[in-house]
Structure formats: structure tokens, C-alpha cells
């Protein structure tokens, strides 16, 4: 890396966003002549402080010493032209057992026991940047960046919770997903991954009391007062067992009468260790686990995971498989939005729409069932394609649905969106400004409700979305009502995409035929070629081998940007799988949105930001 940093020039980076998209396909950024943001960073900090690393996803990646990380991140946020204003993700990797660490791949990399990885996103550049910090086992601590991005708060708590890496200066460094009584840090490689390694589970009364005591909320810990001059505050646990929280979400609300003084969302009740599970599943057998992350999004989760995996493994997906994927994903977007629509109205006290929308969803599930055999969690996508070809008569089912839904949506407009009580409850309630939304890492419909026309399907096309015609619905105020408007319009756009899929479904293979990772191989090959047969046998009985490397695959999922950051060390499964979910960020904005409002507003906001607890807790 001894190249002259001044040779770097940002001029080589095309200015127009559409051209930037194209640049991703040009090949890995050359390490000898860093361009773009890598060059800018080298120019500012020198080669010592920022060391680039090549990755399979071509996202500019730098290593930086722990002493410099705040400076580098601050520079990225506010120092560079077209800054990286969005805090996208932060996580860590336990590198101690990694077979092919990045050092062996590229040379000159710092050795690391634990690596903390930050992902930032710039809408101006339409580009991510990845900043890595190497840590030694003896000194596991990084400085906090919550003052730069308040959204980093939960991510840093998660890093502490999962890896035991201390975050210095964090305002409230406490476990976030695991119970406070938990021993150890689960995503460390030495933490057991199987229940059978941990002894039988029991919950005797004393243990239950201990757990309950650990769950008790102490206002003083959060710097909250117990009373004002005129009244005592009520500290109310809203959830985890509450009809309005859409699952096991706990929100501790500090109330003055019905007015919300402050609140603290507590998550983790739905945590199932999805990331840990990836480490002991093969690349292939992990697919159905992804379905359960955003459990309303079904195969859309498969798509996010496979986007990352196929980048990593360099698998090309044939056209028919791509269109099938898009078609099913968009159908699941509608399915997810239908659930949201009904429950949103339900949260506002309107009883009937949820029955109508779930009824419609049932019709969509009939199609899913006819194709996949399963309904909510089909696990239908495979490396390089989908599990099977479409069944006979699939197109008629879709055509019927495309004809069926629009009049229904029109009716719901009348019942819900044009209802003046609903408007009164949601307009001007729980709004964020565009700048806030961008900094907090808000994505998806919630971001578009602030008037920002940004859809990853259009701006960073994946899975062949560039071939489809559709609009990006936006709204202006960023309040509960506008979030609803955007989602409803999105359903219509998804129908448009599905219609194009049905009309233009290409012929051909439904799964890659030129990759050994796509099982099963063509029959004629296995009959004639022992190599193919053996690879297939090993790939299925042992697991598919993916070359060492790392890649982020991020898609426009039902609720926003869902990204899988996968690391392979050349094994048959993920060495580390990081799942970045939209709901995590969205839930973090809850206190900001609800302070000063009333209890019913809180429920309206919860309904409008459309989260799924499994998507938050993973």
C-alpha cells in the first residue's frame, strides 16, 4: 500500500448517480491507485491510518486504528464532499477462528482478534463505505460515536451484548438483546451455539423472580425523575404482553396524566440468535432461517441473503429465476403491507379493516401456496435461482389477483385513508424531518414519507429490478398519515411489477446451470460426468463451499433496507452473518417521535412505522 495518496482523485467518480450504479460492475477498486472515497481518506489521513481492503461487494472498505476511528467517521459524516450522513450498521466479528483472515487474502492487513465494522451510507454518492477497526483480545474497547449519530446507540449496545466489546463513553451501555442475567457474549466463537451444550433449561420460582427483578425498570438509571412539581409520573410498562405492540415489544413510558414525558423501548424478547444460527448452518440450509427474520416478508428475506451470497460466490442467476424471484418478492411486499394496513387501522381503534386485508392476504397466500407449498415461510429461493419451476396455471392465479386487489384497495382508501377520524389521529403526529430520518438510518416507506424519492430497487438495482417500470411513491410530511399513504401506493406499484412479470416471464432455467453451488445439477451432466456428481454429493451432504471473502447484499425489503453482511472463510457456512434490519433503526426513533404526545399517539406511531419484532431482535 505504498502508493502515493495524491494520485487518488475523486474526479474519476462519475457525478451522476445513475453512472455510479454502473461503476459497481467495473470490477474491484484497484488497491494500488485508490480512487473515490478511499483516495479522499488516504489524502486526509495518510496510508498509515486508513488501509483499504478489497471485498467481493466492491464497497470501499478501510481499516483504521482504534485511536483514529472517531476522526475517520466524523470526517466521513461531515468532512467530505457529498458526505456519508446515514448510519447504516455497526457490528463486530470474532476473528479468532477464521481460517482465511483478510490478511492472508490481500497482504498487509492488521491482525485482529475482534473486528468492529461500521457501515455508512451516502445518498449523495449512492454508495456505502465500510470502516473496520481491529481489536486485540486484551484490549476490547472502542470509543462511542453516539454523539456523531444518535442511531449508533443501540448498535453499540448490541456490540457490547454480543461480543463483550466495551464502548467507551456510551450513555447507557447495557445488554440490549440478551437478558441482563445472561452469562457470556453469544456471538463470540467460544459461546455455545446449541441448547444441548448448555444443560437443560428450567425456570424455578427463584430464578423467575430473579429474572423479573432484572426486568424491573428503574427511572433513575435512565436519568428520569419520578415526579414533577405538580404531579407524580406514572411509569407504565406497555408490553411485552400488550395488544397494541404487535408482538413482544416492551415500551416503558413515563407519563404525566396521558402525556408522554419520555419513553424507553426495550427489545430482545423475540431474539432467537438468527446470526449465531448462520454460523452452524450451511450456506444452503440457512435459507429457511432467513424467512423468519421479517416474518411477514417471506421470500423477500431469502432474496436479501442470496443477494449477498451470490455476490460472494459469483453466481449468476438466469433470467427466468430472476423474474420469478421479483414476482414472488413483490407479492410478499403486498402481503406484508396488507397486514400492516389492517393492523394500522386496528391500532387506531378501527376494527374491521384488519379482517378485510387479512382476507385479501389469504388470496395472495393461495398463490404462494400453489407455487411453494408453504405460506408464510416458503424458503423458496435457492443459490442461483429458485427451488422449482412455476406450476401449471400460475399465471391465471396472478391475473385473477391483479384484477381483484385494486378495487379492494380503493375501498380501503374510503374506509381508512379518507376517514376524518383517522386523519385527525395521524396527520401531524409522529413526524420526522428528512434530515433526521437520514441520520437515524430510516429507510423504506418511512424515509419516502419525508419526501425523499429513494428506492434501492431503482437506485442500486439488484435481481434485475432495472428491467421493470414502476414509480417510487413519496409523501411530504413524514408523519403517521404520510407513512400510510406511501405504503398503500406501494402496493399498487408492486401490482404493476407483478403484472409485468406475468406478461414477460422469460423461458429457460429456473436455476443457474453453470454453477456448482446451484443444486441439483442438470441430469445429463450427472449421468456423464463423475466430477459433477461428486460435487453435487458433497454440496448436498456436506455443504456448498463458498470462496473466502465478504459481501454486503442489501435490498429494498418490505419495511426498508434489509442487508446481509456475509463473511466466508472458505467453509460450508457463514463464518459470520450479520443481518441489518430496517425495523431496528425505526424502533430506535420511537422516543424522538413520541415525546410530548399522548398514549394513543404512541400506538398510532407504532402502527405507522410498520415493524416486526423478529425483524428487530433477529
Amino acid at each position, binding site marked *: 500500500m505504498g502508493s502515493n495518496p495524491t494520485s487518488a482523485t475523486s474526479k474519476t467518480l462519475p457525478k451522476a448517480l445513475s453512472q455510479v450504479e454502473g461503476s459497481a460492475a467495473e470490477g474491484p477498486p484497484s488497491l494500488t491507485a485508490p480512487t473515490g472515497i478511499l483516495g479522499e481518506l488516504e489524502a486526509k489521513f495518510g496510508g498509515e491510518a486508513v488501509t483499504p481492503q478489497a471485498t467481493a461487494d466492491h464497497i470501499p472498505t478501510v481499516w483504521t486504528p482504534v485511536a483514529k476511528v472517531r476522526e475517520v467517521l466524523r470526517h466521513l459524516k461531515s468532512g467530505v464532499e457529498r458526505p456519508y450522513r446515514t448510519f447504516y450498521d455497526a457490528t463486530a466479528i470474532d476473528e479468532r477462528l477464521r481460517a482465511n483472515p483478510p490478511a492472508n487474502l490481500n497482504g498487509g492487513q492488521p491482525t485482529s482478534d475482534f473486528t468492529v465494522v461500521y457501515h455508512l451510507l451516502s445518498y449523495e454518492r449512492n454508495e456505502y463505505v465500510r470502516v473496520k477497526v481491529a481489536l486485540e483480545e486484551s484490549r476490547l474497547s472502542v470509543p462511542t460515536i453516539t454523539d456523531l449519530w444518535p442511531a449508533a446507540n443501540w448498535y453499540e449496545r448490541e456490540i457490547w451484548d454480543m461480543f463483550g466489546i466495551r464502548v467507551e463513553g456510551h450513555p447507557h451501555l447495557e445488554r440490549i438483546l440478551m437478558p441482563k442475567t445472561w452469562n457470556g457474549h453469544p456471538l463470540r466463537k467460544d459461546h455455545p451455539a446449541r441448547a444441548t451444550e448448555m444443560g437443560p433449561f428450567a425456570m424455578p420460582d427463584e430464578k423467575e423472580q430473579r429474572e423479573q427483578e432484572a426486568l424491573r425498570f428503574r427511572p433513575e438509571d435512565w436519568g428520569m425523575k419520578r415526579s414533577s412539581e405538580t404531579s407524580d409520573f406514572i411509569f407504565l410498562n406497555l408490553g411485552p404482553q400488550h395488544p397494541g405492540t404487535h408482538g413482544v415489544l416492551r415500551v416503558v413510558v413515563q407519563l404525566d396524566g396521558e402525556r408522554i414525558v419520555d419513553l424507553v423501548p426495550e427489545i430482545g424478547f423475540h431474539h432467537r440468535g438468527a446470526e449465531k444460527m448462520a454460523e452452524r448452518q450451511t450456506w444452503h440450509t440457512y435459507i429457511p432461517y432467513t424467512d423468519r427474520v421479517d416474518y411477514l416478508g417471506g421470500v423477500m428475506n431469502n432474496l436479501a441473503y442470496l443477494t449477498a451470497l451470490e455476490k460472494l460466490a459469483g453466481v449468476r442467476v438466469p433470467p427466468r429465476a430472476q423474474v420469478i424471484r421479483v414476482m414472488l418478492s413483490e407479492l410478499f411486499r403486498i402481503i406484508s403491507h396488507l397486514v400492516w394496513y389492517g393492523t394500522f387501522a386496528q391500532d387506531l381503534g378501527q*376494527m374491521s379493516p384488519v379482517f378485510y386485508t387479512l382476507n385479501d392476504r389469504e388470496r395472495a397466500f393461495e398463490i404462494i401456496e400453489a407455487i411453494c407449498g408453504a405460506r408464510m415461510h416458503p424458503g423458496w429461493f435457492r443459490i442461483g435461482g429458485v427451488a422449482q419451476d412455476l406450476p401449471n396455471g400460475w399465471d391465471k392465479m396472478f391475473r385473477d389477483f391483479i384484477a381483484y386487489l385494486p378495487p379492494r384497495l380503493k375501498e380501503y382508501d374510503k374506509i381508512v385513508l379518507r*376517514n376524518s*377520524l383517522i386523519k385527525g389521529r395521524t396527520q401531524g403526529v409522529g413526524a420526522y424531518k428528512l434530515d433526521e430520518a437520514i441520520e437515524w438510518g430510516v429507510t423504506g416507506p418511512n424515509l419516502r414519507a419525508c419526501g425523499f424519492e429513494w428506492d434501492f430497487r431503482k437506485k442500486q438495482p439488484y435481481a434485475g429490478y432495472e428491467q421493470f417500470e414502476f414509480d417510487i411513491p413519496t409523501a411530504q410530511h413524514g408523519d403517521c398519515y404520510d407513512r400510510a399513504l406511501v405504503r398503500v401506493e406501494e402496493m399498487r406499484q408492486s401490482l404493476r411489477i407483478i403484472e409485468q412479470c406475468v406478461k414477460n416471464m422469460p423461458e429457460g432455467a429456473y436455476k443457474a446451470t453453470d454453477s456448482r453451488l446451484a443444486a441439483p445439477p442438470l441430469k445429463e451432466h450427472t449421468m456423464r460426468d463423475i466430477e459433477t456428481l461428486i460435487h453435487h454429493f458433497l454440496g448436498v451432504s456436506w455443504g456448498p463451499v463458498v470462496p473466502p471473502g465478504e459481501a454486503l447484499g442489501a435490498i429494498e425489503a418490505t419495511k426498508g433496507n434489509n442487508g446481509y453482511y456475509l463473511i466466508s472463510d472458505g467453509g460450508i457456512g457463514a463464518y459470520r452473518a450479520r443481518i441489518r434490519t430496517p425495523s431496528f433503526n425505526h424502533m430506535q426513533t420511537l422516543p424522538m417521535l413520541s415525546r410530548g404526545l399522548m398514549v394513543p399517539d404512541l400506538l398510532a406511531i407504532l402502527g405507522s412505522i410498520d415493524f416486526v419484532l423478529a425483524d428487530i431482535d433477529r
Partner: protein
Amino acid sequence: MISFKDIVAAVLTVVGVLFVALTIAAGLIWVERRLLAVWQDRYGPNRVGPLGLFQVLADTIKLLAKEDWIPPFADKPVFVIAPAIVMITVLFSFAVLPVARNIVIADLNVGLLYFLAMSSMGVYSIVLGGWASDNKYSLLGALRASAQMISYEVFMGLSLMGVVLVAGSFKLSDVVEWQNRNVWFVLPQFPGFVLFLIAGIAETRRLPFDLPEADSELVAGFHSEYSGMKFGMFFVGEYLGVTLVSALIAVLFFGGWLGPVFGLAGWARTALGIVWLLVKTFLFIGFFILLRAALPRPRFDQLMSWGWKWMLPLALANLLVTGAVVMTMSK
């Protein structure tokens, strides 16, 4: 002197009214669930007995057989009495409801005042129940209930003033007789009707005024800690309230037992009167249920400001206009 016959008649009326009111209230459990189901594209309870009619019975048995739960942290006597209050006060109100000409438990000359007094008592049940539970959700529900019910009570009384002014009496049978001579009050007193309807929904805490229990916000509001038959009483109390308010709307604004008589006379005519009243009552019960199927819930502050800033001035204006019109007409 009170004759034996009078006593028998009185007892029969009492038992009859009590029986019919309670039967309707219990039946509403089934009616509401089936009607909602129809409007929501689903079946509703259809398994127990013909058309699921015995669902009521099944529910009752279930409620009776539930483990009784009086929270140790609750104020025990108040906790037990609260659900009984809601039922008793609503039942008491039925005493002044004229079922047909000359069939009424007590045709009091302060009938309407008596009804208003009894309905005000209902709020005690909610507040005491919520307070005694010593549960934050119950308490919030109870606070909402008290604020909401007293606010809407103010103009509930005012909204009826127009009727009283025109009919010149608090006696409910007089009100019906006036409608017999002239026209159903819904026409001359349309604003009064609308206001009373709204106040009536608020008093019975039905959607869109179900804020005291607001399931998606307060879990079950004031009766979160109640189970078994004590919960059942809040439940039946609500349906009794719906029945009462619907019947009162029918009596005050839609001519009570009046309707085509088809040349009948005597007891047959009386019986037909009862049928007419029942038909009208059920229409309004149906309307209550339809509201529940259709409307979302406003926010607490919106509810309060509608009450104080719209309903109250409107009720006053209605009264003054009615007064002025009555005076000019009589000149």
C-alpha cells in the same frame, strides 16, 4: 287504596321488564358478534346450537365457572361492588321506560330527570372499578372514563331540554303522547336527537367513544383486572346500557310504542305497541353495532374538545332556538 289487582299488575310489569331487558342484553352478546361478523366478511359464533345461538349460554357458563380473582393489592369491597353498580343503575333506569300505553313500572313525573340521575351514577362504577384495581391501565381507563362521561353528560341533559320544553313535561309517557298528537320529535328536534345519540354512545362507552377500555392502547382499560362473573357484569352492563339508550331514543324521538295499528284494539293493540318499540330499539342497537364495525377511535383530547367546543354550544343553541320558536308559534 291499593288493590290486589294493582299489585299483581305491578309485579307482572316489573318481572316482565326485567326479564325482557336482561334477555335482550344477554342476546346482544350473540347479536353483536354475528352482526360484526357479517360486516367483516366472516362467520362469527356459529357452532353452539342453531346459528350459534347457545353461545350466550356457553359464555355465561364459562364466566360463572372462572376462578374468582380479587387482586390482593386491590381495594376489596369497592372492587366487588363496582361491577354491580353499573348493572344496577342501568337496570333502575328501565323503571321509567314506557313500554306501551299505560304499561310502565312507574310513570314518574320526573322521569327524564330520574334517567339522567341514574345514568350519572354509572360513571361511579367505572371510576371505582378502575381505582380499586390499583393497576395503571385500569387507572388510566378510569380517569378517561370519568372525564369523558361527565363532559358528555353536561350536554346530554341539555340536548333533551328541547324535547322537555316542547312537550312541557319530564314524564316519558307525556312525551310519547305529545308525539301521538303532533309529530315524532326527531323532526322538530333533529339537532337534539343527534346530540342525544352522541351523548348516549359516550355514556355507554361504545366505539368511537370506547376510550376507557381502548383495547389497543390500554389493554382492557378500567376492567383489566376483572375476570369471571365480575367482568361479566361490566359486559352485560354495557349491553343493558345500549338497550336502554336505544329504547330511550325510540321513546323520546321516534314515538315509542306508536306505529300503524292495523285497526287493532285492546290488548292486541298494546302488544303491537310493544312490538313497535322493540323494532325501533333494535334498529338503534344495530346502529350502535354498525358504528363499532365502521369507526376508528378518536384521541382523548379530541374527544374532550369536541364535547366542550362543539356539543355544548350546539346544545345551548338548540335550546334557545327551540324556546324562541315555541314562543313565536304560541303567539
